């Protein structure tokens, strides 16, 4: 099974990287660009066929390592 985990900064936490990308896009002439945020996507191959168990494991991984829940939120996607 393959999973994607998205880790992004919580709303309210400043994202200078997203802002820098937004500015750069503006400078390149992409005028319609509004807010930009940057996060991480982690693609994981999982030797697990049960999707409930997989989800539980992934949640555990996020809480323990993949996200710092002081500042980040995460989202899990099985594919």
């Amino acid at each position, binding site marked *: 099974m393959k999973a994607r985990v998205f880790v992004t900064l919580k709303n309210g936490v400043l994202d200078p990287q997203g802002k*820098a990308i937004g*500015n*750069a896009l503006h*400078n390149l002439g992409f005028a319609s660009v509004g807010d930009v945020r940057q996060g991480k996507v982690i693609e994981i191959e999982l030797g697990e066929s049960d999707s409930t168990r997989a989800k539980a494991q992934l949640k555990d991984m996020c809480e323990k390592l993949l996200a710092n829940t002081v500042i980040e939120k995460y989202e899990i996607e099985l594919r």
Partner: protein
Amino acid sequence: MIEITPKIVREHGLSEDEYGRIKELMGRAPNYVELGIFSVMWSEHCSYKSTRAHLRRLPTTGPQVIQGPGENAGVVDIGDGDAVVFKMESHNHPSFIEPYQGAATGVGGIMRDVFTMGARPVAMMNALRFGAPDHPKTRHLVAGVVSGIGGYGNCMGVPTVGGEVNFHAAYNGNILVNAMCVGVARTDKIFKSAAEGAGNPVVYIGSKTGRDGIHGATMASAEFNEDSEEKRPTVQVGDPFTEKLLLEACLELMATDAIIAIQDMGAAGLTSSSAEMGSKGGSGIELDLDHVPQREANMTAYDMMLSESQERMLAVLKPGREAEAERIFKKWELDFAVIGITTNTGRLIVKHKGEVVADMPVHALSEDAPVYQRPFTHRTPAAALGPDDFDSSKPIADSLVKMMSSADLASRRWVWEQYDHSVMADTVQAPGGDAAVVRVHGTNKALAISTDVTPRYVRADPFEGGKQAVAECWRNLSAVGATPLAVTDNLNFGNPERAETMGEIVGAIDGIAAACIALGFPVVSGNCSLYNETNGEPILPTPAIGGVGLIRDVTRTASVALKRFGDVLLLIGDTKGHLGQSIYLREIDGREAGSAPPVDLTHEKRNGDFVRGLIEAGRVDTVHDVSDGGLLVAVTEMALAGNIGASVALPVGVKKVPFLFGEDQGRYVLSVPAADLDRIRAEARAAKVSCVDIGRVLNTPFVEAASASVSLAVLRKGHESFLPQLMRAPS
């Protein structure tokens, strides 16, 4: 099996003649794997086929030299059983395509060259050349290269202590990224790459092999054209974390006596490391690729032999020591595998899945690589300027401010603040001075390091320019009180198949050789990067020189910062007012013209020895050499560094502009207490060294000269804002 057609041969960058020669050496046609192996080993990058004949003219010996060119890095004695190990290398083409990773892997590669010799890296330098500041690619390239160098070096925990940055339109399509690594080893613990003896295990250590940068070595030897950017050959991604582990693991293994030979896998990876080790050891090597740690599925023998995956080493161990070595690498979580054995057959035999996929004489790959006597023409050196052929109408103050804020003279702080220059807690002089000074850990001595070349001089006159690069480097080391020991070079030029470019190469090498001989400053390692041109437009000839010197007592060194109000400024060395190829002429007159300033090597040596003697005696602590921009720029740099004002008084009868901004060579500015003035002048006279009182250290924050006066604040603002402004995204 893939059939070898003339097209395939061409795609491997081999000429018809070269292919014929390969068939002769092999006694048959090579197969595809063998062709691939020949192509990288015989590439310009690995074989130095255009320059080898000329490089022989460089002096490479001296009582201090332990190991000259030919190993992974040069080794020089610094006393007490310590040795300094260093080399410079380019990563120009990859950095243009992917600036962050290109520069990062350049740093990683040169570090491996140094620690593979048994040295712990203690300092990094980087010499960078970018296109015109306003060229659309420049900002992106500067940002990527600088953060790539920092990204790798900072993680390794080796301070990056200096370098050079130049901008010139000639580099628009071909930037230069030259990195230098300096390490320290014990003289009785130097490791070499000769795989001597038969029956010894060949082991692979480090990262797994992937399909990275296959044909990187041939790419580095090919001219760019419009569509190489489209083709975008694969660039390697660096992993400084793994390299740091590799460094520590290698040093731990080296502390045992299990190693016979060791060599990093750089350009042309497994191929060049095994062929070179076998060739140097006069032995043969048999590899079984099935045991190579692989990152990807279905890798072919061709892929594995030509992969340029980073962070890998090849070593030959004493038989029976495999388990001990494996323990060390497992602890550091690195791959370790016995992948072959040394033989006495003189052949490189490669097996894959039970079949012999390559069987070739080791010698044919390295020793028998072609050497070319390429035709060359010496261009007539640019004509000298007439005595009044410069604009003297502009106010001195305006010129000074403009020059201090110009691309080549402005502060490089924006660059070096992104490099950790104080890690390892031995950096005595950080970037910003003439030479970086790094204490040898746990001792009272220090190494001084500088990289130099003035490409516009080399373009105007390759021979004088080559001399000047060495002389300026020697001067920068002398200016901090170091005894210059030896140099590494990085010869960056255009296409050597063009007679004019070849003439630049030959002329510069001759100039370098002349200066190295006269100054007792041998070349112990180096690197050539040719074919730096895009659409037939070559770069400025850029033979970068990296020099290392020794300071015996680290408490006796000098820096550029003015320190005391009331000090006298002394100018050492003759001033004729040479404005040809000067920054003044370019920035104020808007011309790149005239002859390169000549270097009188006898004076150079005399002046440097004199200045160094004063520093070593503990009598002078403030010195700056005079280089780009001339005397007033040097004095201004000293004032800014010390945050104290200074005034320069013109000797009677001299013309302002040539005196203040001429770039005559072999000169230094010293700041000395007035009470010492007479004694120093008398000593200079006795030593036949020109020594002129040219000014004072002020108690007001101004730089004054020829009735001009500019505040330090104004000078600093311009000087410090060029790079931040260039790098700020337009908003």
